[in-house]
């Protein structure tokens, strides 16, 4: 039984990260409107407090922390709209820990932990919902190596990152998927940045044109790609959700400050209930979404059977709350909120964009709707007996 003490450790972690980001994530690094992706230097500095190695095991010098901790960092990053490769690098490093062969781990995890290698995850072959059956990226054996061919769409951070986790088809059927780690410098990897709503996290089109990699780059067993994806999907969901709630919390703080300063009719606008009640509702929404994200992260750490369900719920709610609350913050700012100069539009861009990161919030909602046990809270009635 795990009991989380008013977890001095976690409270400390949150404070440490918040203080770090306040000091180091200066405006230029935190979604300055002209920003184009993340800053390498900032990420190397973040390694000084271990952020790139949050979920990397101590074997490779990482902090060996869980998903609650990883979510706390994502939340704090969202709060200041931190432009960094944190999210997908953390998730990819977790996949490497989970499924990588020892040599592959040895090659990459220490460098990831030092902030020298960043990662992206390339899944989608087609626009539209994630559908494992539709995977067309091919990986074929060729004298002991693999040769990869495909186009991967909308790869977040894909243009800048050094290492790509790529899901490929190695034979027909659901069991015919296999994941690989592909260095971006490998011959035949072409990347094109796509004009993206989220300026701090542009998407890329990644083309694999007869990319040759050795069998050691395989992530997990042959045909284990769907299984790895199923493992990764709730973790991506919780990571994106945590960042999204952080975005909402940050926007709410900015708007609350503004409502105390901005004077109209001789008073701060926060005096008027048309403003204050919207902010109170935004607070309620942020609190609830925060609670659900934490609960989902905990359930991942506890290997709870409900973890994927809670992760999907957190993903759906966090997406909604992020857009609603940043929308409220923009509204409270009036014309100033609509300007390029005011950084709130970077919050709006990320809140909106995050809803569509694979797997999209809508995809998760549809999984929940289709999941028969989900909408029964029958266990609630205590029919299962005591305790």
């Amino acid at each position: 039984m795990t009991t989380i003490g008013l977890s001095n450790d976690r409270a400390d972690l949150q404070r440490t990260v918040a203080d770090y980001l306040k000091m180091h994530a200066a405006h230029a690094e935190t979604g300055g409107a002209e920003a184009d992706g993340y800053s390498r230097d900032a990420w190397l500095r973040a390694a000084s407090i271990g952020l790139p190695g949050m979920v990397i095991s101590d074997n490779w010098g990482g902090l060996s922390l869980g998903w609650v901790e990883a979510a706390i960092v994502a939340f704090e990053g969202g709060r200041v709209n931190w432009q960094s490769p944190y999210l997908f690098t953390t998730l990819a490093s977790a996949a490497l820990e989970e499924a990588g062969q020892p040599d592959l781990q040895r090659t990459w995890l220490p460098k990831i932990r030092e902030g020298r290698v960043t990662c992206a995850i390339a899944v989608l072959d087609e626009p539209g919902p994630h559908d494992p059956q539709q995977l067309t990226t091919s990986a074929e054996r060729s004298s002991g190596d693999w040769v990869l061919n495909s186009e991967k769409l909308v790869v977040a951070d894909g243009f800048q990152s050094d290492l790509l986790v790529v899901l490929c088809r190695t034979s027909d059927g659901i069991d015919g998927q296999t994941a690989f780690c592909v260095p971006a410098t490998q011959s035949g990897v072409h990347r094109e940045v796509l004009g993206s709503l989220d300026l701090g996290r542009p998407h890329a089109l990644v083309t694999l044109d007869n990319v040759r990699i050795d069998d050691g780059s395989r992530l997990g067993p042959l045909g284990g790609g769907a299984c790895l994806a199923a493992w990764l999907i709730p973790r991506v969901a919780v990571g994106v959700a945590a960042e999204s709630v952080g975005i909402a919390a940050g926007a709410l703080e900015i708007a609350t400050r503004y409502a105390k300063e901005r004077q109209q009719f001789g008073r701060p606008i926060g005096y008027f209930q048309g403003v204050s009640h919207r902010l109170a509702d935004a607070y309620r929404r942020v609190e609830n979404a925060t609670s659900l994200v934490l609960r989902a992260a905990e359930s991942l750490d506890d290997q709870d059977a409900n973890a994927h369900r809670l992760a999907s719920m957190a993903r759906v709610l966090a997406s909604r709350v992020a857009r609603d609350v940043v929308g409220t913050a923009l509204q409270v700012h009036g014309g100033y909120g609509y300007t390029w100069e005011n950084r709130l539009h970077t919050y709006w861009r990320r809140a909106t964009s995050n809803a569509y990161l694979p797997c999209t919030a809508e995809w998760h909602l549809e999984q929940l709707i289709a999941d028969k046990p989900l909408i029964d809270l029958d266990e609630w009635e205590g029919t299962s007996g005591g305790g």
Partner: protein
Amino acid sequence: MRVDMTLGPRVSAGSDTESDSTDATTFRSAARAWIRANIPQEWHEARTNGLDHQARRALQREWQARLHAAGLIGLDWPEDSGGRGGTLLDTAVFLEECARLDAPEPINVIGLSTVGPTIIEHGTAAQKIRYLRPILAATEIWCQGFSEPDAGSDLGALRTSARPRGGHWVLTGHKVWTSYAQEARFCMLLARTGTVEARHRGLTCFLVDMEQPGIQVRPLRDMTGEWRFAEVWFDQAHVAAENILGEVDRGFAVALTTLLHERGSHGLVHHARARSLYTAVVRLARAIMKNGRPAVDDAVIRRKLTNFAIDIEAMTATAYRYAGSLAATGRVGPEFAILKLQWGELSQALVEFALDLQEASGPIADSEWGIEHGRWQYEVLRARSNTVAGGTTEIIRNVIAEQVLGLPRGR
């Protein structure tokens, strides 16, 4: 304002043992078994056979008698007041289990949830000895006289006056929305002892005996048709000086304690009510047919149910997070009130959705065509009080805006 992402200890949790501390788990499972075995059978039947109000009140009385006999009441009250000497969290866990199993509300709910805790905090030794045990035993029912016709949310505008005369005080005025006044032996009353201009600083809290000639109670029929609340007139009613709760002109501080308790451990139960209500709606959606199939299989209905489930899961997670912070600090924060805010709006949406499921039978309250003997037609009326009673949603938004976000006191 800063949203705290960290968790307290997970001491209160719904359905799984691993989230509770060991003691809480033991207590929870014992409580659950006891509650299941002791809810009067007629209570569950009352859900579906349209039991009348008086019969329900009788069952609520029976329920509190059983709780009292088993020592399962006043869990967080001191032992020398007849309580169990536990924590607010014990109460929260117990109430959560009661809501899970759809147990009745104890007959003396005002005494238990607001009056008692306020007396424990502000009462004299003599007041504690005199009043607390009978609240637990329900031998004396309490009501709470705060609202007036011209002062609902705005307690600073209260006009019912109390004037000293000899060794006692004389009360004159008019209270309204006073739940269970017609059954109450005592009333915790807020009256003006200072000037009107003094507003909140001119109020005093009294413990008033309702059985005296100067008090007239007129039950008010609520929109469900039941007689749950009342108007109360005070015409030269008497209250002894020793029955002032707290200090003269400091009644507002006493009232704040009351409101905090209303939203404190008793506020950590809204998520449980929401879960029970949701479960009943899902059951309804399984029973009702749509296009030849159970309505629960319909894509649009599933989407709506799923969205409710997400909101309820989030609210539950918040309740546990707050329970953790309550366990760690012993403090009820003003942010706890968001649970009531959420419950008010969510419960209304849920019961209206339950009516939507019934389509053309929606307006049929009770006949052979009626569904579940008009339960949902009753609920859709009853739920309107959830955004009004115990602090309107507007007042709660003010509380969040001012006390949590630090915005100026506004209008």
